[in-house]
């Protein structure tokens, strides 16, 4: 007897049928509402509406644009600050002889603008150098190595009324910071 014949002999025997109660129990269980949601199944992702998707995408692009703008502004600010420091260092050279003379007129003009009344007229302004401090640290800039030097002044400004002779005096502390190239020191 070969395998096929033996299988046919075996297949001639039908498996025993289950009891009638099994079908009833299965039917009862299948028709009953499951008490819990089956967790083995795949939970379908809720459909994303097209409007929300477009809105989120637009928000994303706007956020990316804002980030780029902020980065650009920060970079521009940094470059501008460096440029101002460089120009300050550059204009310091002629001030070696006397920085006071160069910037002396500016506070007076500002004071005139502020007190530009019909009565008072600026009569006197002076600047008293209080201290000069050289920083111990050297800074590396695009124009080379510089040292920070702080000039502290005390400015005296006086206004007088030509008619009444009244006087207005103001003392303003002022500090100027210069970056002097190390090669000049």
């Amino acid at each position, binding site marked *: *007897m070969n*395998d096929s014949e*033996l*299988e046919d*002999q*075996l*297949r*001639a*025997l*039908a*498996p*025993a*049928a*289950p*009891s009638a*109660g*099994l*079908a009833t*129990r*299965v*039917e009862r*269980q*299948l028709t009953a509402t*499951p008490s819990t949601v*089956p967790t*083995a*199944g795949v939970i379908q992702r809720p459909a994303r509406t097209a409007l929300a998707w477009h809105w989120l995408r637009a928000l994303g692009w706007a956020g990316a644009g804002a980030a780029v703008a902020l980065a650009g502004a920060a970079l521009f600010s940094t470059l501008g600050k460096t440029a101002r420091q460089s120009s300050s260092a550059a204009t310091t050279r002629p001030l070696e002889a006397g920085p006071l003379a160069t910037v002396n007129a500016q506070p007076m003009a500002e004071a005139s603008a502020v007190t530009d009344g019909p009565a008072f007229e600026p009569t006197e302004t002076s600047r008293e150098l209080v201290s000069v401090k050289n920083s111990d640290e050297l800074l590396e800039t695009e124009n080379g190595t510089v040292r920070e030097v702080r000039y502290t002044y005390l400015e005296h400004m006086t206004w007088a009324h030509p008619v009444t002779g009244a006087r207005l005096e103001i003392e303003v502390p002022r500090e100027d910071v210069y970056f002097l190239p190390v090669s000049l020191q």
Partner: protein
Amino acid sequence: MPGDVSSTEDPRFMNESAPADAWKTCYRELAPKLLLFARQWVAEPADAEDVVQTAFVKFWRKQPDAQREHYPLLYAAVRSTALDLLRGSERRSRREAEPCVTVLREDSTFFDTSVEQREDAALIEGALRSLPPEQREVLVLRVWGSLTFAEIAATLGESINTVASRHRYALDALRRQLKPYAHERF
């Protein structure tokens, strides 16, 4: 014959128009086979029916539109449920400090038989019980479950070659055991 499934052997039995009753056709076709498969591990017929019930309900809830190609999943569910029950029984036996002995009932048979088939069925059932479990389950799935080797491999999580080998060994062992009676019956 209650176990005769030839009348419902239609792989396209599932139609889309009556999904509520579709399980009945599937159940009528498969329940005897599933019960025989479950009894390879579970001795008590009532326990085997519980296994079939649990596995079938679980399967049908996940696969309400089950087709013929899904049957290996159902057999796998029966096997898994039966093994769970068996492990639970073993744990209970250990807990109660009793040896886990599978007691086979004398009046329980795997097959529905006519009077003429009764002796043959007893011989075959005895020969089946003497097979190693891994060979027996392959033979049951192949002969009475009508599964292909590929489907059996998917059900058991084994390779097709392993399944085919076990099937061949099982047939050889059955042939040896039934040889003394071959001149009379086989």
